[in-house]
């Protein structure tokens, strides 16, 4: 299996351009039409979006790719189904730009508007994702949730290491 390029990985950046935004950017070594396809077709999204080890999958992955159309992703692991991420498409410019709302089932009041822009860069594709939250508090809560997930993953790893020692 091809391993993702270290050079591309180094182009990954997270910034907070304003009090209510989180912006992610990364370069992908693939033509723009393939990146767009990977973002918008369920059979592809299932392959990269979730936690994705042999214990996790993405059993629900629905995309109604038209303005006003809904999307819904649900991950599943040994602990069961996770709360869904879902939203509605607001703007679609094939291969270039997607604007959609994104909600997390646990915090349905704290939705964001996500703008994804794909640009060609010397045969590669740069993806810039900007998530705009209703307030700074919500944005900060999302950053905090990131920490909790990260911590959970680390605990899983710790458990594996501990099991190996037994």
């Amino acid at each position: 299996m091809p391993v993702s390029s270290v050079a591309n990985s180094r182009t990954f950046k997270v910034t907070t351009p304003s009090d209510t935004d989180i912006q992610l950017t990364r370069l992908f070594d693939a033509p723009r039409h393939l990146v767009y396809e990977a973002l918008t077709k369920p059979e592809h999204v299932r392959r990269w979006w979730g936690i994705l080890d042999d214990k996790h999958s993405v059993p629900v992955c629905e995309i109604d790719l038209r303005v006003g159309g809904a999307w819904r992703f649900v991950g599943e692991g040994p602990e069961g189904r996770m709360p869904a991420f879902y939203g509605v498409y607001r703007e679609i410019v094939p291969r270039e730009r997607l604007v959609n709302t994104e909600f997390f089932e646990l915090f349905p009041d704290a939705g964001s508007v996500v703008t994804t822009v794909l640009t060609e860069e010397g045969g590669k594709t740069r993806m810039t994702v900007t998530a705009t939250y209703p307030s700074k508090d919500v944005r900060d809560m999302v950053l905090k949730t990131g920490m909790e997930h990260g911590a959970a993953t680390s605990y899983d790893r710790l458990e594996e290491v501990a099991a190996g020692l037994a």
Partner: protein
Amino acid sequence: MAADQLSTTFAALADPTRRTILARLATGERSVSELAAPFEMSMPAVSKHLRVLERAGLIVRGRDAQWRPCRLNASPLKQVADWTERYRHIWEARFDRLDTYLQQMKAKEKAHARKQRRK
């Protein structure tokens, strides 16, 4: 650091005046009047901002009653930076998987194109 302490830190950082004060303190300690100088703001208003920063643990004030210089305390800022770092890890992993998967899509597309040419 307790979660409510982190909320206090985030709330303290939410204000542009307070961020400007912190940025100025990054270069060294300052008195309240020095900090107030660039703002069109009364001393009590500046003092109020300083109290918020002090409660959040972002600044430390000297004991001297006459001259209570303010000093930056960077450790809560580091906690905030750590949060962003964790969020970064999740997305970094997700994007790495996408990158890997795109290489498979590319290989498939190439193989498909070869097949088409042979027909």
